[in-house]
C-alpha cells in the first residue's frame, strides 16, 4: 500500500491501517528513543507518546515531507523535551543525594574504554550528542537529521564534526588502545 493511501485510511479511522503505520515505523522510533534515553522505560514512554501525537496530528500532515521525516521530527521533539525534564528531575535528586552525603558512583571513574566512550557521549552538549547518536550510531543522513531537528544540513554536519572532536579529546588517553 502506498504511503499516501495508508495516511488517507488512517485519517478515515481505519484501525488496521493505524497498526500498519505503527509497524512500519516503530522500530526506528524506539531505537532512537532508546539510544538517546538509555533507559527502556523512558524509551517506551517516548515512543508511545510519539505515536499518540502522530495519530492525533495526522490530519495536519500536508505531505510536504516524507511521513518518516515528519514522524521523526515528532519523535526527536518528544525525546529531547522528555529528557530535559528527566535531567532536571535527576539533577534535583543528585542535589539531594549530595546534601545527604551519598557518594554517587561516576562512570568516569571506571577505566574501561567502552564505559569511557559512553560517558564521553553522555557528556556531550545536547545538540552534539543528538546529532552524533542519530548519524554515527543510528545511521540517519544529515538531511534526515536536519528535517527532524529543524536545522540546516550544514549545521548537522558541523555539530557532528564538533562532537567527534570532543570525543577524540575526551578519549585522548586511550589513543594507544584505539591505534592498536
Amino acid at each position, binding site marked *: 500500500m502506498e504511503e499516501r493511501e495508508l495516511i488517507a485510511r488512517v485519517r478515515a479511522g481505519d484501525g488496521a491501517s493505524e*497498526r500498519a503505520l*505503527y*509497524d512500519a515505523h*516503530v*522500530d526506528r522510533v*524506539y*531505537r532512537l528513543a*532508546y*539510544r*538517546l*534515553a*538509555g533507559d*527502556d522505560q523512558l*524509551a*517506551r514512554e517516548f*515512543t*508511545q507518546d510519539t*505515536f*499518540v501525537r502522530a*495519530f*492525533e496530528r495526522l490530519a495536519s500532515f500536508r505531505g510536504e515531507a516524507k511521513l518518516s521525516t515528519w514522524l521523526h521530527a515528532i519523535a526527536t521533539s518528544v525525546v529531547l523535551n522528555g529528557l530535559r525534564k528527566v535531567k532536571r528531575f535527576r539533577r534535583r535528586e543528585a542535589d539531594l543525594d549530595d546534601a545527604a552525603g551519598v557518594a554517587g558512583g561516576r562512570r568516569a571513574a571506571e577505566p574501561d*574504554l*567502552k564505559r569511557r*566512550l*559512553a560517558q564521553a*557521549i553522555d557528556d556531550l552538549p545536547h545538540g552534539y550528542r543528538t546529532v*552524533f*547518536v542519530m548519524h*554515527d*550510531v543510528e545511521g540517519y543522513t544529515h538531511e534526515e537529521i536536519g528535517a527532524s531537528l529543524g536545522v540546516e544540513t550544514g549545521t548537522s554536519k558541523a555539530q557532528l564534526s564538533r562532537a*567527534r572532536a570532543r*570525543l*577524540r579529546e575526551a578519549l585522548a588517553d586511550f*589513543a594507544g588502545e*584505539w*591505534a592498536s
Partner: protein
Amino acid sequence: MTDERFERLLREAAQQYHRPPATPREEMWLGIAATRDARRRRRLLVANPWLRWGLGIAAVLALGIGIGRWTASLPGPAPVVATGSGDQGLFAYRVAAAQYLTRTEALLTGFRSEARSGRPDAQFARQARDLLGTTRLMLDSPAAQDARLKGLLDDLELVLAQIAQLSPHGDNEEVQLINQGLEQRSVLLRLRTANPAGPGPVRTQGAL
C-alpha cells in the same frame, strides 16, 4: 592515529552505546491504544457539559448518600443523637451554605471588577458552572427553608447561569446585562448581609 581511523573505530565502538533491546511492539501498541482511548473519553467529557455536570452532580449525590449511610450505621447512644440531630444537621447546612456564599461572593466581586476593566476571563464561566451545581443542591436542602436565603439562592442561580453561558468571544453587552442584574437586585449587598465577613463560625451568625 588518523582522523579517518579514529572515526571508524568510534563508529564501531559507538554501536554499543545504549544498545536497544528488541522493540516491545505489542506492549507499546497496547499502551498507545489505552492512552488514546483515555484521551478520547476525556475529550467527550469536556465537550459535553451535560455529561460533565451530570457526573459532578452524581458524584456529589453519591458522596452524600455514602456519608448519610455511614453516619446512620455508626453505633452510638440513640437518645443523644435524637435530641441533637436536628440542630446539628441545621448547623451543618449553615456551614455549607456559608462556604458556598463565600465562594460565590468572591466570584461575583471578581467578575464585577474584571467587567469594569475589560472582558472577564473564561475562568469565571468555569467557576460559575461549578457553583451552579452547588446552588441547585442548596436550593433543595433544608438551608433553603429560610425564605430570605431561598430568594437569594434563586437570584444567584440566575446570575451564575448567565456567567456560565458567557461565550469567550461574545460582546460586552452580555457582561453589562449581568452587571445590571446584579445591581438592580442588589445581589452582592444581599450576599454580604447573608454572609458577613469573618472566620467560619462567625459567618454563620449572620442572616443564616
